[in-house]
């Protein structure tokens, strides 16, 4: 009897036979979105895209145009010219400043990544429980403002700071060490500390992703811990290393707070110079030119860096 009932409902007049099913209604926009994957992608991106256009691309264009202007007294001469670029290329002060900036942030980047790698490695491979807590603890310095951290280092490295007074009271030195503060080293130490979290997080993510059985496989195939690190762990964490390097190198090259507070005359960087151009000197076109030149240098270095790491990765295998 239930079977008969079932058969009846299946062929009841309210259910049209399969051939005459009502058409499924879809809106035109829905259809378009369903068919066009690119469009869907753009739609998803649109808020970001809008912010990027307004916040980055338009200012960048303004900066670019500005860099081809020149300053005439208190006015800007809006005729487009390469004068500023010629000055940057010919006057040695710009080159020296740029080279020093790239050097300082390059050393700071390498120092930071080298110091953070073991920490990230430890959390990824040796911490079993509460990994999140470890990561939060590591990024704890980031909970205070950048400026405060820089001042903290000033207190530590200063003429009568923590290190100097400690060393004097221990009797290891007679007079305070002067190179600690207002030097390139001071800038490098401060930058390395201030940007540590930017290195640890990408390094941790890339190390955490490494399949543990790959490490066992390398051991099984005869690699000791050192060989295994250079042949498997490091190459597989390379995306994290590259990301960490970029995340630190790019912002630190243009940084002006740390060099201004801790750098002294020797530690002055291009960022300070650009800030001065836009500020007291009131030579916006020159500041814009320097910003563009700095950007081009960073791009060039980034490309070379990417190329070299890729080659090295192929070689190491």
């Amino acid at each position, binding site marked *: 009897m239930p079977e008969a009932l079932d058969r009846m409902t299946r062929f009841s007049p309210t259910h049209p036979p399969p051939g005459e099913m009502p058409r499924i209604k879809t809106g035109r926009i829905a259809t378009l979105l369903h068919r066009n994957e690119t469009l869907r992608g753009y739609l998803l991106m649109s808020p970001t895209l809008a912010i990027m256009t307004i916040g980055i691309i338009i200012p960048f264009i303004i900066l670019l145009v500005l860099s081809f202007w020149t300053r005439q007294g208190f006015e800007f001469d809006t005729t487009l010219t390469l004068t500023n670029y010629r000055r940057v290329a010919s006057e040695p002060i710009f080159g020296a400043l740029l080279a020093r900036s790239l050097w300082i942030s390059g050393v700071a980047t390498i120092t930071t990544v080298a110091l953070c790698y073991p920490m990230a490695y430890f959390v990824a491979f040796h911490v079993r429980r509460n990994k999140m807590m470890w990561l939060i603890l590591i990024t704890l310095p980031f909970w205070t403002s950048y400026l405060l951290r820089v001042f903290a280092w000033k207190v530590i490295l200063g003429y009568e700071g923590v290190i100097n007074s400690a060393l004097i009271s221990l009797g290891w030195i007679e007079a305070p060490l002067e190179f600690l503060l207002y030097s390139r080293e001071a800038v490098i130490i401060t930058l390395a500390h201030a940007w540590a979290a930017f290195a640890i997080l990408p390094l941790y993510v890339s190390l955490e992703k490494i*399949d543990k*059985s*790959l490490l*066992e*496989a*390398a*051991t*099984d*195939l*005869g*690699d*000791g811990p050192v*060989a295994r690190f250079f*042949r*498997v762990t490091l*190459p*597989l964490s390379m995306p994290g290393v590259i990301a960490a390097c970029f995340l630190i190198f790019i912002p630190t090259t243009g940084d002006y707070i740390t060099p201004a507070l801790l750098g002294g005359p020797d530690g002055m960087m291009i960022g300070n110079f650009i800030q001065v151009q836009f500020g007291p000197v009131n030579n916006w076109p020159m500041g814009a030119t320097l910003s563009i030149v700095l950007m081009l240098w960073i791009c060039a270095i980034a490309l070379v860096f990417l190329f070299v790491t890729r080659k090295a*990765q192929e070689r190491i*295998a």
Partner: protein
Amino acid sequence: MTGSSAFISVRSVSKAFGRFLAIDNVSMDIAQGEFFSLLGASGCGKTTLLRMLAGFESTTRGEIFIDGQPMSPVPPHHRPVNMVFQNYAIFPHLNVRDNIAYGLRKQRLPRARRHEMVEEMLELIKLPGFGTRKANELSGGQRQRIALARALILRPKVLLLDEPLGALDKQLREQMQLELRALQRKVGITFVFVTHDQEEALTLSDRIAVMQGGQVLQVDTPAGLYESPNSRSVASFIGNMNFFRGTVRRNGAANAIIETEGLGAIPVPDSRFARPDGAAVQVALRPEKFAISPTKPDAVHAVQGRLANSAYLGERSHFYITIEGRGEPIAVSAPNHNRFVANAGSHAEDTPLWLSWSSDAIVVLDPE
């Protein structure tokens, strides 16, 4: 197998993880060139034992000897064993050639010789011309073969395989089983193979160790395990089995008789077991050891029953038959020899039929 001829010798080995005893006093010997399987359900300790052979886990107690050498002081990268991992662990940043040549670096061979060896391996695993493929361009079966080649190129004394066929689909798995067996015969390396698939273990192995709860229940050849299991656990883990309660009756005669529930008296030669009069035993009979017929067969041991259920499986049919004196129906698996079996699906419930068996098909076990 005597201790002296053993190539791998596991001596009273235990492994504790905290308070959990993963391996409980296991001893076994594996001969050189043998295809040896560790078989058991997940969590039985088989993978732990394999990882102890590889050196990834230390032994809490006992010692493992390979080629006469105690292994506990030897770190994994110095052991004369190589492993094929369950997920194959192919290095994603290297191509096929560099994956296979990975372990050769230590031998400091000239580049040309290394290439030559890799090409030989690719030939052996039937993937010639795959050297420059990226790891992510490989199918599951190809990855499995490359993991195999990567280990075999080092000519290890022992190859450890951790469920290497588990991730493959049925057809590919059966093909790889045959290839693996052929390869093992060709290279002559001792294989220790971990699997939870009893059919796979039976197909591939020279000998099998059945494991449960960290202990080894029985070590025997596939036929030995199947035909004369030493316990109910082994009997029911490998294939299907019908168990009957029985009692030994000795009337001074040479052969004992086992009074078996539902099946009556079955004579058993003394050579098969030695138990006193009145001892309780279990009689075990595989489903395919029964013959089934609609009429009374011309056999010494036969019993009449009624059909409870049946299923047609193509080459064979399964019947569930209730007999008097036993609550649980007997499982019978019959090859598709005749019309009666072929029509398995169409026999009505309670159809009377006859079961027969030969007395040497029975296995006598201690009661649980």
